[in-house]
């Protein structure tokens, strides 16, 4: 197989898996493959930018916190890494239901990078290479292709059985602010300008997306007395199920809140013609959920002010991140507008805000294992798939890594469905729905979110992680014990009856709860369901209660308290699963199916759904089309 080059000598190597890019997706993908025993090479344009956080200095947040917990439950690294390196932790939506509690931690960016790099460098089977991958090596096989490896800009060839693309925003990256436009990746890092061409040559559709980041300001030039302090939580909950709160206790730093005002908005409006977003200089599609400050001012003219959160980038630096102020206005305008805000009259910008455009793929060309439908062995994960966010990238990296490894072992891929995790919702949305903007996770995208909570991510997914081989027996056995404790305790509470006596009624009276009448006993679980009571409070009247770990107590309370809602969602899931189980053969020729509408034929042919449920989620496929499909599936089954 070795090729002889008579003119020049190039490095030629063989490995199991090549991962292109070492951002949040690339790190998880490479770690998963290496940990599962495969000889893995991960490429990065700069070793110093491994696990870089070029935008916000935090991990988690609404629905993203869920992703990190799920990743941890499956054996990923991000949760452990942020637990080690956070400088502030906060549970969002604490006053709401448990399904929308979302953990968010501010990171010390430098420590985060160092920690992740340390883990990568010390993982067996994993090698890091600083080089730009410029070409995919593929082989034709009938109508499709099979991956053979990659080439780098120096001409080196790495043959591999699987390749995972995790190029983030680096493909033909262009940073834009005001009249200035530079072909670089984030933070002035080298862009990858050649790989796109190779993707196109291999039949992959390439699109152009856009995102942006706000300015960083020198902390010494900010007057914090004019802003509101935002402290972290007293009780710090770890992301990783392997950590206990006491393991990760530490001194926390504060974030700060300030606001834009009429003056800020006037400066923006007066200079809007200098914004590349409005002049048409930027062609990439930007996300609606992460609008630049100029977008906000133009689209929401009635809002008198916008909140700006001022967040430290880490212990190592004075730089402060201005959350809510992403922009592509020229430098001079940026400085003028920032200085209008309370606390910022003398502010100095360290790094200005910019918009960044990059090439990404159309993820509907992927299977839900994240493998390309038409190129066997080539996987794709992270921002290249049209998603946005570190957490969204990380979980895709993990899943691509797991699936590449399973395939190497000759096993069936691991697909998490929409009823099992946010990871499933994210990937299913990416590969099924044609998104026209960078995709961000949101809790409202999860139909069964009452079941998909942060707190039960391990109960949902750790068994799968163990089956794959990323969760060791010790951790798995602990999970089994936990499940058992939860079940037993719920049963005990259902069977323990509170009678009408002074102890019980004094307790109920104390918490403003209706007292029990003579002869009308209620089980403890019924009492827990009352809005004013909960499992912890009932301890006062529960003499038989065993000592249980806090995570178990939490599950018991949630499972009992929201039983009605949870049961209803479980019924919905059952209906959902029925359709997911109806598999569609990959060889189906939709043009031959009479009775399908033309639009449905086009969409189904393009996306090639794997089951009836997925087919129904494609826009442009109607319930009548689904009926037609079902009839044909039956017909084929009988043939």
């Amino acid at each position: 197989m070795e090729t002889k080059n008579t003119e020049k000598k190039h490095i030629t190597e063989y490995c199991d898996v090549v991962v292109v890019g070492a951002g949040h997706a690339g790190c998880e993908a490479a770690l998963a493959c290496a940990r599962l025993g495969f000889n893995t090479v991960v490429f990065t344009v700069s070793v110093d930018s491994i696990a870089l956080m070029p935008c916000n200095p935090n991990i988690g947040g609404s629905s993203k916190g869920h992703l990190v917990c799920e990743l941890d439950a499956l054996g990923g690294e991000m949760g452990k890494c942020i637990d080690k390196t956070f400088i502030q932790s906060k549970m969002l939506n604490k006053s709401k239901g448990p399904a929308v509690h979302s953990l968010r931690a501010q990171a010390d960016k430098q420590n985060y990078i160092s920690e992740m790099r340390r883990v990568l460098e010390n993982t067996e089977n994993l090698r890091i290479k600083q080089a730009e991958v410029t070409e995919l090596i593929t082989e034709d096989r009938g109508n499709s292709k099979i991956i053979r490896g990659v080439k780098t800009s120096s001409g080196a060839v790495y043959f591999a059985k699987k390749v995972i693309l995790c190029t983030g925003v680096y493909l033909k990256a262009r940073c834009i602010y005001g009249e200035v436009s530079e072909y670089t990746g984030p933070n002035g890092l080298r862009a990858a300008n050649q790989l796109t061409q190779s993707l196109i040559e291999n039949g992959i559709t390439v699109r152009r997306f856009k995102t942006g980041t706000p300015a960083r300001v020198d902390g010494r030039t900010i007057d914090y007395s004019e802003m509101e302090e935002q402290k972290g939580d007293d009780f710090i909950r770890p992301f990783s199920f392997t950590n206990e709160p006491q393991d990760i206790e530490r001194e926390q730093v504060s974030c700060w809140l300030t606001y834009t005002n009429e003056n800020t908005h006037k400066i923006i409006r007066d200079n809007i013609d200098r914004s590349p977003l409005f002049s048409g200089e930027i062609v990439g599609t930007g996300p609606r959920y992460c609008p630049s400050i100029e977008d906000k001012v133009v689209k929401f003219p009635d809002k008198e002010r916008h909140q700006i959160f001022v967040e430290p980038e880490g212990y190592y630096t004075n730089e402060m991140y201005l959350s809510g102020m992403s922009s592509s206005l020229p430098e001079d305008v940026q400085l003028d507008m920032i200085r209008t805000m309370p606390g910022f009259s003398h502010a100095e910008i360290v790094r200005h805000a910019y918009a960044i455009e990059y090439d990404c793929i159309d993820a509907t060309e992927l299977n839900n294992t994240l493998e390309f439908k038409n190129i066997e062995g080539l996987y794709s994960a992270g921002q290249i798939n049209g998603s946005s966010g570190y957490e969204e990238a990380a979980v895709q990296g993990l899943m691509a890594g797991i699936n590449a490894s399973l395939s190497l072992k000759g096993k069936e891929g691991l697909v998490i469905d929409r009823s099992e995790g946010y990871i499933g919702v994210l990937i299913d949305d990416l590969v099924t729905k044609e998104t026209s903007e960078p995709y961000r996770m949101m809790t409202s995208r999860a139909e069964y979110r009452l079941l998909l909570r942060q707190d039960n991510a391990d109960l949902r997914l750790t068994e799968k992680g163990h089956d794959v081989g990323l969760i060791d027996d010790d951790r798995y056995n602990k999970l089994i014990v936990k499940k058992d404790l939860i079940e037993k305790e719920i049963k005990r509470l259902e069977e323990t009856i509170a009678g009408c006596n002074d102890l019980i009624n004094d307790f109920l009276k104390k918490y403003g709860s209706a007292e029990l009448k003579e002869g009308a006993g209620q089980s403890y679980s019924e009492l827990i369901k009352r809005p004013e009571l909960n499992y912890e409070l009932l301890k006062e009247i529960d003499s038989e209660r065993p000592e249980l770990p806090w995570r178990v107590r939490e599950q018991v309370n949630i499972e009992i308290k929201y039983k009605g809602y949870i049961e209803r969602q479980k019924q919905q899931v059952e209906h959902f699963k029925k359709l997911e189980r109806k598999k569609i053969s990959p060889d189906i020729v939709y043009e031959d199916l009479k009775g399908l509408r033309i639009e449905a034929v086009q969409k189904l042919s393009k996306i090639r759904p794997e089951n009836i449920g997925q087919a129904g989620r494609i826009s442009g496929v109607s319930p009548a089309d689904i009926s037609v499909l079902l009839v044909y599936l039956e017909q084929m089954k009988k043939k």
Partner: protein
Amino acid sequence: MSETIAAIATGLTESGIGIVRISGDDSYNIISKIFKSKSGKNIDLSESHKVHYGFIYNVSRETSDEGKNDILDEVLVINMKSPRSYTGEDTIEIDCHGGVLMMKKIFENVLAAGARPAEPGEFTKRAFINGRIDLSQAEAVIDIINAKNTRALKASVTQLKGSVSEKIKNYRNTILEDTAYIEAALDDPEHISLDGFSDKLYSDVDIVSSGIKKLLDSSENGKLIKEGINTVILGKPNAGKSSLMNVLIGEEKAIVTDIAGTTRDTLEASINLSGLTLNIIDTAGIRNTDDKVEKIGIERALSAAKNADFIIYVVDSSVPMDESDKKIIEFINTHDKKSLILLNKSDLEQKTDVKKITDMINDGSAKILQISAKMSIGIDELEKTIEEMFYSGEINYNDEIFLTSERQKTALANAYSAVNQVKESINAGMSEDFFTIDLMRAYEELGFIIGEEVKEDLVNEIFSKFCMGK
């Protein structure tokens, strides 16, 4: 386990006998709730393929005529155990006395006992999936499903009263806006606050809930949709269309003048011919005109006629045929519409070539009648002719209309229970994230009624209304 479905298997006509069919795992359970012996005892259905004699009892709603548990009809019930039935599932057939009203009442009771209205072509689909229909018939099955779907869709679009769909759209908008607000706040709690929102939501949901209740009540009286045969009156200006309509409905709804082109829009009314409902649409006269308003009227007339089950073509027999008549005849022929030709103004001297007109329409098969709308001559015969055409099957009635309306009712009831669940959750002091589950359920159910799906609505609403993000 498959859901249990039901439908009226015979046409919804004034026939001697009607059949209501139930299929699914719960069929036996459902029939035992409403079908008993004369003395009110349960009937033994343990043996399959037997005919049982008994009575259907009213379990659904009380009316002035029938109280709870009153006997509705004397029927024969045939029970077929899975897999020996058309669908391959447990199946019950109720042979009841024909008559639109009775069949509907029995059907409503079947639904009240736990079945849901069948989707278009669903019996056939189930038969196929359960292996009761030959493979070679797969395409025919798809054709049936598609044809029924098209008709159901047409039924839901054309039959739902404008005011009803307007209301439903408004309720959906309210629900979507409130849900989007909650979701935006949950997604970005540091920028959007939910303080006090429960109060606003409660009052919004309360309005929606009582609105849906009103619709549900009126649906019981059939006011939700326009059931019946869509009948369009076409003709030249001043041929006497409006006079005919007035005679038929017995009130001066259409304005009658001697000036040609008075009816510039379409007018609608329902009449009842011995149990048969006709939705009559009077239209603007067809002629070449430069008058903008009248032109719009003519366009509307033709588009109404396209959706019609039946066309009454009014000819002014006192004037000769001209281009406008040809235009109408051509329309009837190209759209293959069942039609009846009325030679109006029989009290005046006849100048139209009757044979020529009949020959030109529907290959000479169209019926022709002489009337004088103005003098009310020939109207009895007209009504009799329409009835005959219907009962002989010449006029086809869109049978999906009734089923569609039942599906819409079911969806409405589901939406009602969902919004009430929201109210309960608010009262129970639950947090906002619990509300949106039922809000979106209501949104989806209301969507069924007007034929709209959910897909990306919520996310789009969040992004368009709220200023999110970093």
